[in-house]
């Protein structure tokens, strides 16, 4: 594909003046492109470095490991530890994935295997539109509708299963890790199902037809061909969804209940990395408090680079494999 850059220069028949002008034009064009590309690369690099520099007093005081594993967050005592928020980030993302992945996979199968061909595109757009709703609007709805509506469910689980397993136990104030996980699930379904859909759609036609020609049903197609062949791509989609869920901010901030402590139950209020930053930033007046929030941001930065890098690596391996495989 990049070969367009390597097309050999065609013989130029035009006159010297025109040729010179074309040549200088190309140089200028190239210079502009390089400047902009280099510029944005440098600017982004500098911004990342600046963030780490801003956070460095906190890392110096508590140590990188100490900051990450510290489970106490007490700005008034100038004690900062990120663990409660890392925990909240993973817990809410996990809840979101548990709900969103099966739903997304089924939607992807519906849109690649089951739905009539001419309905597939419009149905797909409907799912994509879920991603277009701004986070703050989901938050508003979550806060005023979803959280109150889910409380009876939370109370029912806490009152039965929760008596045995404290992880599902009371109290159930409504705003909670669980509520955040549910709203995150809604928000990551479009991305997970879009990537999964792409993966499933690239299932070799011959494989799909082999199942049908052998008297298989659409379900047989899904379980013997689409899912096994697409499993690497599916994994990439899940990891990508995880990356999205980890960084989602405003909607989570509005429904998670905002507590600096690790909640014992999934129905307890808590914080994710992103939501504690958003919630406390404008009132961060204590010593090192803003720096500590920026440090949380750098933790989130590293986590999402790792997770997204993993997703890209899986996806590259998957596409490379499918090209050579069949």
């Amino acid at each position: 594909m990049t070969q367009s850059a390597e097309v050999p220069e065609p013989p130029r028949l035009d006159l010297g003046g025109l040729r010179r002008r074309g040549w200088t034009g190309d140089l200028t064009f190239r210079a502009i492109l390089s400047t902009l590309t280099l510029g944005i690369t440098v600017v982004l690099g500098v911004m990342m470095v600046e963030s780490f520099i801003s956070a460095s007093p906190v890392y110096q005081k508590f140590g990188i490991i100490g900051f990450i594993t510290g489970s106490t967050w007490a700005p008034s005592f100038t004690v900062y530890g990120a663990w409660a928020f890392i925990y909240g980030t993973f817990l809410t993302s996990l809840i979101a994935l548990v709900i969103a992945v099966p739903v997304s996979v089924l939607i992807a199968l519906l849109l690649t295997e089951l739905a009539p061909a001419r309905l597939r595109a419009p149905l797909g757009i409907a799912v994509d539109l879920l991603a277009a709703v701004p986070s703050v609007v989901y938050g508003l709805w979550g806060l005023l509708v979803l959280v109150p509506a889910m409380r009876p469910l939370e109370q029912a689980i806490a009152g039965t299963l929760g008596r045995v397993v404290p992880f599902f136990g009371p109290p159930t104030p409504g705003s909670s890790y669980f509520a955040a996980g549910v709203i995150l699930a809604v928000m990551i379904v479009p991305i997970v199902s879009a990537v999964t859909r792409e993966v499933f759609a690239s299932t070799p036609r011959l494989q799909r037809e082999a199942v049908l020609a052998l008297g298989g049903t659409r379900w047989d197609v899904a379980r013997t061909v689409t899912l096994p062949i697409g499993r690497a791509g599916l994994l990439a989609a899940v990891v990508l969804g995880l990356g999205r869920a980890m960084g989602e901010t405003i909607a989570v901030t509005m429904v998670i209940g905002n507590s600096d402590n690790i909640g014992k139950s999934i129905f307890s209020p808590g914080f994710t990395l992103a939501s504690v930053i958003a919630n406390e930033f404008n009132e961060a007046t204590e010593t090192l408090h803003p720096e500590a929030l920026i440090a949380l941001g750098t933790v989130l930065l590293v986590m999402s680079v790792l997770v997204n890098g993993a997703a890209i690596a899986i996806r590259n391996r998957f596409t490379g494999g499918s090209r050579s495989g069949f």
Partner: protein
Amino acid sequence: MASDAVVVFAPTSRWRRRKANLFAFLAAFAFVLALIPLVAVFGYIFVNGIHSLLSVDFLIQDPPADLSATGGGVRNALIGTLEMTGLASLIAVPIGLAVAIFAIEVGGGLARGARFLIDVLAGLPSIVVGIFVYASVVVTQGHFSGLAGSLALAIVMLPVVTVSAEEILRLTPRPIAEGARALGLARWRAVLSVFVPIGLSGIVTGILLGVSRAIGETAPLIFTSLGNNFFTLDINQPMQALPLLIYRNALNSGFATARDRAFGAALLLIIIVFGFNLVGRWLTARRRLAGSSR
């Protein structure tokens, strides 16, 4: 005849048919389940927000200083959103296109580096982008500003614009690429007068999707433009935006007035975001149809 048919072609066993039907049912159910929030959110915001939007004051007045007071509108937020997103587009579109063209036409280490950075950026939470701009611009300048907000939104838009433009430009058919060069067109002319126009609708789609994403962003603005209860056009001042206004009012939703203001602003925001989004998709869909009928 029917009995013949059954003898010759034994139907699938009931158990197997049930499994296939259950699968189809679950898939349809999952789809409906996923769309419930979309319909619910839209319906809820519409029902609660429409009466605010129907009054002209809502668009041309600023909100009262006290969130719990009645009256006022969201003019400062609407103008702030438009101004910051517009400025963000002015920054992100040329740079985004330049990086895409550079990656395709020039290539090399710098292009790979920039593209890698953009891929990283695409997966980065927008709140982290907000922190970047805070740490580098706001801290340096010593105050929050609409300019910082625009920068943050531009960085949010950038990967959307670059990735889609690059994808589209790569699709330019090789014969056309070679034909343009064979005509003796200088490379920059070939790019700007042949390739970009061919991919224009796709590129515009990418830009519109980028804009629709940036308009809805709240998190990066908290650290950059901060929000402002008063109307301002000065990008050196803290600036209000619709998502910020919704966020602040929603956190005070105990007051009916604040809640109503949030609903009205949310409906306005949804209309703007969906407008950009759907126009963008429509452009691409139209191009696909035109392509397939050829």
